[in-house]
């Protein structure tokens, strides 16, 4: 009987420990959340630099324009890699459930952003007017994606 009891106790303890170790990993993949938040922050920096030029707050430079689009394009290529199934909640994520519920639509939005940023790099705008046009096209991606795939939690 006492053997039986200690066996039960050990099993329970083992199970308990395993659960304790396993739970955070199952519930949330904080690394992925942190990584994509970092990428989006970088994206915001690029957008701000581009926006300041488009608004005429900073002087237009073709080199800077290329930097903005290149940075955005690199982010666009990587961003979709950081939404594993175990990263739906936690870490103040604002990722909407629609990302996992409508993976095709989310993928299509990513591909559009990749294509539009590539097109802007290729267009290589040399003056403010054509930069504004390219930047406007690229920037449309922000809200069309955020309309469905981000939840504002602030």
């Amino acid at each position, binding site marked *: 009987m006492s053997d039986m009891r200690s066996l039960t106790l050990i099993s329970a303890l083992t199970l308990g420990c395993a659960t304790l170790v396993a739970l955070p990993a199952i519930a949330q993949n904080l690394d992925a959340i942190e990584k994509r938040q970092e990428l989006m922050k970088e994206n*915001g920096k690029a*957008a*701000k630099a*581009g*926006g300041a030029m488009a*608004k005429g707050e900073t002087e237009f430079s073709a080199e800077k324009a290329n930097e903005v689009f290149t940075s955005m394009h690199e982010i666009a290529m990587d961003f979709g890699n950081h939404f594993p199934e175990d990263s739906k909640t936690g870490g103040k994520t*604002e990722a*909407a*459930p629609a990302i996992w519920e409508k993976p095709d639509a989310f993928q299509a939005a990513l591909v559009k952003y990749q294509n539009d940023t590539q097109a802007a790099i290729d267009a290589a705008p040399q003056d403010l007017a054509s930069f504004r046009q390219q930047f406007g096209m690229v*920037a449309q991606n*922000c*809200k*069309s994606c*955020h*309309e469905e795939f*981000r*939840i*504002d*939690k*602030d």
Partner: protein
Amino acid sequence: MLDRILTVLFVVILLGAGLVYGLTIPDRLNAAALPDPAMGDAARGETVFWAGGCASCHAPSKAEGDDKLKLGGGDPIRSDFGTFHAPNISPDPDAGIGQWSFVDFANAMKRGVSPDGKHLYPAFPYTSYVKMTDGDLNDLWAFMRTLPKVATTAPANDLAFPFNVRRGIGLWKLAFMDGPGPIIALPEDASEAQKRGRYLVEGPGHCGQCHTPRLLYGAGGLDDAHWLQGAPNPDGEGRIPNITPSEAGIGSWSASDIAYYLESGFTPDFDSVGGSMVDVQENIARLPAADREAIAAYLKVVPAAGGRPGE
């Protein structure tokens, strides 16, 4: 003795029912005081149409361009009370509101009452539209008469008891129906832009419907004491932000930042508009720049407060 008690009880119930019936009779506008619909200016009405955000609920989901003018009813609106379906308000005589008069339209917009004398659900924001001028309503009506007819009938609402009892909305209106007066008192020397902004935000723009918390655990009218201080997202997860000029709100934005956001969808940090605000921003982007500046001027002078109400 028992007879007496029962009789008294019966009379009390009858009186009570009569009282509720009387109190919930739909209230209509004085038709004689409304402007002549022949004087409505459709071109001006288009601006009112975008300010009012009509297409956001009454046009098909994700409609772009001219499809935003096909008002056959939009996406289902899922709420805690059940699912609302915005009706067809195109000029189709059978499926839409083609047989309505201007008086019918004005009663729907400012009283929340349908032509056949039923209460409309306040998911349709008549508690804000009641603040619109009769001239704007007339112009809006003139514009809506020019829109394409859509022949499809929108589905009926699917609401749980007791919310499916329309007469009950009469009681809700008694407690929460707003009047035509402004919500925020502006100083006497307020600029024309601030006053115009107040009109747009409090009236046709109906911004408070999402940005202001509701009384009665979210089922009541707008809690004007927390005007524009943010609220739970009626669409589900997340929050609708505080847009008062406080630290918790958008106090760090300049008036031109606000106007630029409404025009482009970008915050001062070049974060972008998201969620249901995308549609609103794109409607407001169609207004004259002076109207966006007016909205910004008003948002800089509403009482600054708050983080999240109740916290």
